[in-house]
């Protein structure tokens, strides 16, 4: 028995009783005596199903100096996440069942957030032949992607979408035509002013168009990762109107940031796809509001300080983001009145669970006890030096945000409290 005391459920103060990893009772009785049961006082915070992040980089195996499974999962639960999907660009890459098994075992030992790995589309992430998707699926992958090394060959992408669809595996496309993406920041006036080589937006949009048309022709699903441009949103909107089975994510970086952030050459603002323009940012928010974009994923990409203290052009791409995601999204989407907290919860949790066909927390009797408690009125300044993640790389340090994760419960266990 465990009681989550004094939390808001549907706007009312409640005590949520757990037995094991399930909700046993939701009590709105204020005079309830809970003194004899282990409990956690939510202090009037809002209880929500814990978030699920379908796009993170945990860096293990291979790049443990950037992040490892343990530090990544500590960061995840501190961000209010009960589950994360690590991308396969590890070293060696996650293209076979043995590495999937290694990740699953490591993650289980941590007893923090759940891990649903994503396997490679192609062997060695080389874009030449399909990886052993079915074998990896038996060990626990829920999707395939060559994130970061996009599948250039349309022929291979077609085969991947067909083969994965037969297994019920989702194909996640990091949509990028490398031929058009030889720069470091969004191609536009700010890149020109800074004198940094730009990445044309068509690098992303042309590949989104390709994936959508393949999904249409093959009658398969496809998921578009980290949508960053206005035309990208429009392409997905068009596809959905036609009934094409496409889903899409964007992230806090694109909801909150633009390429103004590159003007002081802070390598922490270097991310792929790059931070775009204000008109893109607004189109992405509109896509989240109207349902064109299904969910929010962080693309948590931790790097070491020494890598990110190189010159802009030589520093690696990526922003660390698990621990700032909720606050950034709450501030930009809910506090501004663009959407309700319930809608944000769909974007950060339930829609993700649906896309991946995995369980998520449910605040009902017998519901899975994967929860986050958030304080909607807490205000603070983002400071990555306090993060659990090894990756302190974020251009959002110093931002004033509202909304804070107070505690996270995974599988009925309190795994994080502030």
């Amino acid at each position: 028995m465990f009681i989550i005391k004094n939390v808001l459920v549907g706007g009312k103060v409640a005590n949520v009783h757990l037995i094991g990893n399930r909700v046993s009772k939701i009590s709105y009785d204020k005079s309830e005596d809970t003194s004899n049961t282990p409990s956690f006082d939510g202090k009037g915070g809002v209880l929500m199903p814990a978030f699920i992040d379908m796009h993170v980089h945990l860096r293990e195996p291979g790049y443990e100096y950037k992040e490892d499974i343990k530090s990544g999962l500590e960061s995840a639960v501190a961000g209010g996440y009960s589950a994360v999907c690590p991308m396969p660009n590890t070293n060696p890459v996650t293209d076979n069942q043995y590495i999937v098994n290694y990740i699953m075992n490591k993650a289980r030992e941590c007893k923090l957030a759940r891990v649903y790995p994503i396997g490679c589309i192609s062997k060695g992430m080389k874009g030449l032949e399909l990886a052993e998707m079915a074998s990896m699926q038996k060990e626990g992958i829920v999707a395939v992607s060559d994130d970061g090394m996009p599948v250039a060959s349309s022929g291979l992408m077609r085969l991947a979408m067909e083969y994965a669809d037969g297994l019920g595996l989702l194909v996640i496309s990091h949509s990028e035509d490398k031929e058009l993406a030889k720069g470091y920041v969004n191609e536009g006036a700010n890149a020109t002013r800074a004198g940094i080589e730009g990445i044309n937006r068509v690098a992303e949009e042309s590949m989104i168009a390709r994936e959508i048309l393949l999904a249409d022709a093959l009658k398969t699903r496809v998921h578009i990762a980290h949508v960053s441009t206005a035309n990208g949103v429009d392409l997905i909107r068009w596809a959905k109107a036609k009934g094409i089975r496409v889903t899409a994510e964007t992230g806090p970086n694109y909801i909150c940031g633009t390429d103004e952030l590159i003007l002081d050459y802070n390598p922490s603002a270097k991310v792929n796809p790059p931070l775009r323009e204000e008109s893109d940012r607004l189109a992405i928010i509109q896509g989240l509001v109207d349902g064109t974009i299904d969910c929010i994923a962080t693309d948590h990409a931790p790097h070491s300080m020494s890598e990110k203290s190189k010159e802009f052009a030589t520093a690696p791409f990526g922003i660390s983001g698990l621990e700032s995601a909720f606050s950034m999204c709450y501030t930009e989407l809910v506090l501004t009145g663009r959407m309700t907290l319930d809608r944000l919860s769909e974007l950060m949790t339930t829609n993700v669970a649906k896309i991946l066909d995995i369980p998520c927390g449910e605040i009902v009797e017998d519901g899975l006890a994967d929860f986050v408690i958030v304080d909607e009125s807490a205000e603070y300044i983002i400071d990555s030096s306090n993060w659990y993640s090894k990756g302190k790389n974020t251009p959002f340090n110093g931002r004033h945000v509202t909304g804070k994760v107070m505690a996270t419960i995974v599988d009925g266990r309190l795994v994080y409290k502030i």
Partner: protein
Amino acid sequence: MRKHLLGLEGMSRDEIVEILDTADMMRDHLDKGEFDNDYASGSSVVNLFFENSTRTRTSFENASKFVGANIVNISVASSSVTKGESMYDTAMTLQCIKNDIIVMRHSIAGAAHYLSKHVDSHVINAGDGQHEHPTQGLLDMLTMRRHFGRLEGLTVAIIGDIKYSRVARSNIIGLTTMGATVKVFGIKTLMPAGIEEMGATVCESIEEAIKGSDVIMGLRIQLERMQSGQFPSVREYHREFGITADRVKLANANAIIMHPAPVNRGVEISGEVVDSANSKIFEQVTNGLAVRMAVIKLMSEAK
């Protein structure tokens, strides 16, 4: 003079005028053969060139000597740059070798900004990637001002590889700050997105750019741009988009020809135009020396 000279962006008219006025004075010294001035005696200057440029490095070297400063050259093996050696380590090393002014050339935009945040010394950006080359912008403005007696109201046409040019950016920023009109023309594969937001007027043809201009500034077309497919041939480039004697006739009477050098004769500009009476291309080199003397003098006084 501000602490660092990282770019012309953000500099006021008064700040630019202060440097140009001082540079005029330095130019007088040069013309009189006075090379042993002591404006910056006791100052130490470090030339830190991550990219090869004998011209600019030598110009800074002589400029330092002619105002009485000590100068040392640190040549950085190009291999450590391609390996992405941490700028932070470089900065820390420089911080420990005591010096007053660091002159840095680097192939990456923002490198001088980065350095300036980590050292106590003054930093002069001697060119950072495609970003800025402020002393070049200043020497170009000095050349124009000495010829026309003013910058305000001049029309300057910048022609050639605008996309990869730090010289174009520094000139656009500096000249518009000083009240000149800047027109730019480049073939579309060598034009950067949104350049008009920096205050330049984008022209559709080289003729449109030159017509009515007081200054025709050519920018170097690197042959590697042809190898990467940005234009089909030198022959076509020169014929269709080069600065030729015929096209120069469209400019205002008394117009001058400028180029940051080295010049590719017969590519972006014809040899005939380079050698013509109204060419200031070699004059620019002397003015470069004067501008760098002025900057080192002013920085030494500011310490």
